[in-house]
C-alpha cells in the first residue's frame, strides 16, 4: 500500500495544478458552509452584545435599523436629526437619563461622535493614554483609530463633513487629541469622540470669530446699532479652538433646538423603560424610542432566513462541485487508461488499479481535510476580528 501512496503522490505532484484545483474545490465545498456558520454566529454574538448594552435609543422617526446602525455601531447613513429638547423631555420624566450622540463628521475615515463624558462611563471605556476631553476643541480617540492614524495625546486631527457638498455649514475644525482609549473590541475602537458642543461647532452651529463689536473693517459688517451688529459673509471663522480664542466661540439660537443624531436612553429599571416606551408608542411625538436589542434581533432573524437560502444554495453548489469532481476523476481515469493497461500487461494485479486510485483519493481528501482544518482554525482565531472588520466599520 505504501507503494500505491508513493505512486499516487508522484502523480498528484506531477499534475500539481490539477491537484491543487481539486483540493481547493474540496476545501471550498467543506469549509464554506462551516465558515459561514461560524461568522454568522460570531456576528450575532457581537451585534447582539452591543445592542444588549444599549437599553433604549431615541432618534428620528424612520428606519429603526438605520438609527441603531448609526448610533450604536457608528455605521450607515447619518439619520435625520432630533433636537436636544427630545432628550430633555425624556429626562424630565425622571424615568431615565440620556446620553446624546451626534454623528456626521469624519476625520481620517473615522466617524467623529459628539457626546458627553457620560458615554465613557456607561460603555465602561477606560483610557490607555492621556485624559478625557475637558473643554471645547479636544478629542479622544478609539484605540483602533489611534493605531491606524498613528496619533497620540498632543497630536491633532481635522474634521471633515459627511458630504463634500455641505458647503453651507460645516467647516473643517482642528481638534487636539488629549486621550486614547483602551481597546474594547467594539465600534468604539474605530471612532473619534468629542464633546457634543465641539461636534456642534464642527457642524457649523457654533463658531468663533473676532469680536464684531470692535472690528474696524467696514466690509465685515452689514449693519450696526447700539444693540445689534449684522455681520457679513466675509467674517472668517476660526478653524481651531485655542486658549486665546476659546472665549470667542459661541452658539446662536436656542440650545434646545440643536440637533442630535440620537441618544442612548438608560432607564432606571424595566418599569421605567416600559413607561417611556408607552409614551412613544402612538407615534404622535416627533421621535421614536426603540430597543436596539429588538431591532438587531429582527435583523438577525432576517439574516438567518437568508442564511437558510444561502445554505441551500451552498448545498446545491457543493453537490455540483462534487459531481464535477467525480467527472474530473472519471476523465482522469480514462486518460490513464493506457498506463493502467500497461500495468496490467506488465503483470500488476487487479487490486493495483484500485489501490492506486484509492491512494490518490485519500491523499486529495487528506490534503483537503488538513487545509479545511487550517482554514477553520484560522477562522476561529480571527473570527472576532473579521466580524468586527466586516460590521464595525
Amino acid at each position, binding site marked *: 500500500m505504501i507503494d500505491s501512496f508513493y505512486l499516487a503522490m508522484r502523480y498528484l505532484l506531477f499534475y500539481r495544478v490539477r491537484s491543487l484545483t481539486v483540493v481547493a474545490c474540496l476545501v471550498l465545498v467543506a469549509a464554506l458552509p462551516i465558515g459561514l456558520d461560524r461568522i454568522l454566529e460570531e456576528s450575532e454574538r457581537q451585534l447582539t452584545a452591543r445592542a444588549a448594552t444599549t437599553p433604549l435609543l431615541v432618534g428620528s422617526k424612520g428606519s429603526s435599523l438605520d438609527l441603531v446602525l448609526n448610533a450604536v455601531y457608528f455605521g450607515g447613513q447619518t439619520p435625520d436629526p432630533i433636537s436636544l429638547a427630545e432628550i430633555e423631555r425624556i429626562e424630565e420624566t425622571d424615568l431615565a437619563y440620556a446620553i446624546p450622540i451626534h454623528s456626521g463628521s469624519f476625520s481620517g475615515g473615522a466617524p467623529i461622535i459628539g457626546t458627553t*463624558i457620560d458615554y465613557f462611563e456607561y460603555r465602561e471605556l477606560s483610557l490607555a493614554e492621556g*485624559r478625557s476631553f475637558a473643554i471645547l476643541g479636544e478629542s479622544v480617540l478609539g484605540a483602533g483609530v489611534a493605531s491606524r492614524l498613528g496619533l497620540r495625546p498632543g497630536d491633532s486631527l481635522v474634521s471633515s463633513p459627511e458630504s463634500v457638498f455641505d458647503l453651507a455649514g460645516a467647516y473643517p475644525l482642528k481638534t487636539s487629541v488629549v486621550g486614547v482609549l483602551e481597546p474594547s473590541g467594539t465600534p468604539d475602537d474605530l471612532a473619534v469622540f468629542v464633546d457634543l458642543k465641539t461636534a456642534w461647532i464642527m457642524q457649523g452651529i457654533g463658531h468663533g470669530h473676532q469680536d464684531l463689536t470692535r472690528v474696524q473693517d467696514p466690509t465685515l459688517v452689514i449693519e450696526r446699532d447700539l*444693540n445689534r451688529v*449684522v455681520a457679513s459673509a466675509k467674517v472668517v471663522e476660526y478653524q481651531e479652538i485655542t486658549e486665546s480664542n476659546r472665549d470667542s466661540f*459661541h452658539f*446662536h439660537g436656542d440650545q434646545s433646538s440643536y440637533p442630535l443624531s440620537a441618544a442612548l436612553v438608560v432607564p432606571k429599571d424595566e418599569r421605567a423603560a416600559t413607561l417611556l416606551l408607552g409614551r412613544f408608542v402612538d407615534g404622535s411625538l416627533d421621535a421614536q424610542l426603540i430597543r436596539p436589542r429588538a431591532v438587531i434581533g429582527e435583523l438577525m432573524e432576517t439574516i438567518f432566513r437568508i442564511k437558510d437560502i444561502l445554505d441551500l444554495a451552498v448545498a446545491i453548489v457543493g453537490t455540483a462541485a462534487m459531481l464535477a469532481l467525480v467527472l474530473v476523476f472519471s476523465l482522469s481515469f480514462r486518460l490513464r487508461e493506457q498506463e493502467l493497461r500497461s500495468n496490467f500487461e506488465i503483470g500488476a494485479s487487479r487490486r493495483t488499479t484500485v489501490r492506486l486510485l484509492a491512494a490518490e483519493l485519500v491523499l486529495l481528501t487528506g490534503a483537503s481535510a488538513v487545509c479545511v482544518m487550517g482554514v477553520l482554525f484560522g477562522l476561529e482565531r480571527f473570527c472576532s476580528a473579521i466580524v468586527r472588520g466586516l460590521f464595525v466599520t
Partner: protein
Amino acid sequence: MQLVSQRIRRLGLVVLLCTVLSSAASVAQTVVYTVNYPLAYFAERIGGETVSVRFPAPAHVDPAFWMPDLEIIAAYQAADVILLNGAGYARWVGQASLPRRKLVDTSRSFRDAYLPGEEIAGHQHGPAGAHTHGLIAFTTWLDPQQAIAQARSIEVALAMHNAADAPALARRADALVADLEQLDRDLATAFAEFGEEPLLASHPIYAYLARRYGLDLRSFSWEPDLEPGEAGWQALDVLLAETPVSWMLWEATPLDSIGKKLAARGVGVLVYKIVGNRPASGEFLSVMRANVEMLVHAVGRATPLSRIGSRTAPSFSDSKSEGVSRAGREIAALP
C-alpha cells in the same frame, strides 16, 4: 479587682473604636461641586455630614466669569453631583465637558421666569441669521423664593443620589427653607419702607430682587472701583431730572469720589451684597441678614427681626476668608 476594671476599660475602648470605624465606613460622602457660593451653602445645609461640598473658585474672582483650569474641570467631572445655577451663570460651563448625568440645573423649575440681564450688543450673521441675545440675569438666589426652589432642587438631587438619607435631607431642607422664608418676609418688610420711589442700581444684577419686592429699579453699568465718566454722570442727571431717586444699590462699596458725587446729587449708597462668592466673614444667610439690617438702617427704622436660629453652617473645605468688600467709606452698613 484592679485587673478586672482594667480589662473592662480596654474592652470598652475596643468597642468604641469599632463603633467609630464602622460608622465612618458606612457613611460614604456624596461629593458635590457647585458653580457659586449660594449653592454651596444650600448643599452644606441640606446635605450635612453626608456631603462633601466643593466650590473651588478663588475667593477674589466673580464665579460667573471665572474659568477653571483643566485640573479643576477634571475634579468637577469626577464629582457625584454638579450643581449649576442656570440662567447662563458660569460661562465656563458652556465651554467645558461635564457629565450630563451629574448636572443639576437648580433654577430649571423657574426658567420660564428668567429676566433679561445686562444689555450688551448681540450679533447675527447675515440679515436673516439667528442672533445672540444679551445676557440673562443670573443672580437668581437674590429672590428668596427662587432660592427656595433652588434649595429644593438640591434636596431632590441629593436624595436621588442617596435615597436612604432622604428623610434627613428633607428635615434639613425644611430648616433651610424656613430660614429663607423668614428672610423673604424681612426683605419684604424692609423694602416696603422705601415706598414707591424708584431705586437705582450700579449694575443690572438686582432684577430678581426688584421683581420680588416690586421695586422700580433703574440699572446702570457702573463699577464700584471705577469712575463712571462724564457720560455716566450725565445719564444719571437726566434720570434724576425726570425722577427723584434717593438710593443706589451697590454690590460693593464704591470709591469715595463716587459716593461724594452721588451724595451731592442727593443719592445715598446702599451696599447690598449679592454673595456670589464666599464672604470675607459670616455665611450666606448672615450676609443676607446684614443686607436687611442695612436697608432698615438706611430708612431709619429699627424693625425687629426674627431670629434665624442658633444654627451655624459648617465651614467649607475650600473656604477662604477674603470677600469682595471695597476700600472706602460704606455709607450704609451694619454697625
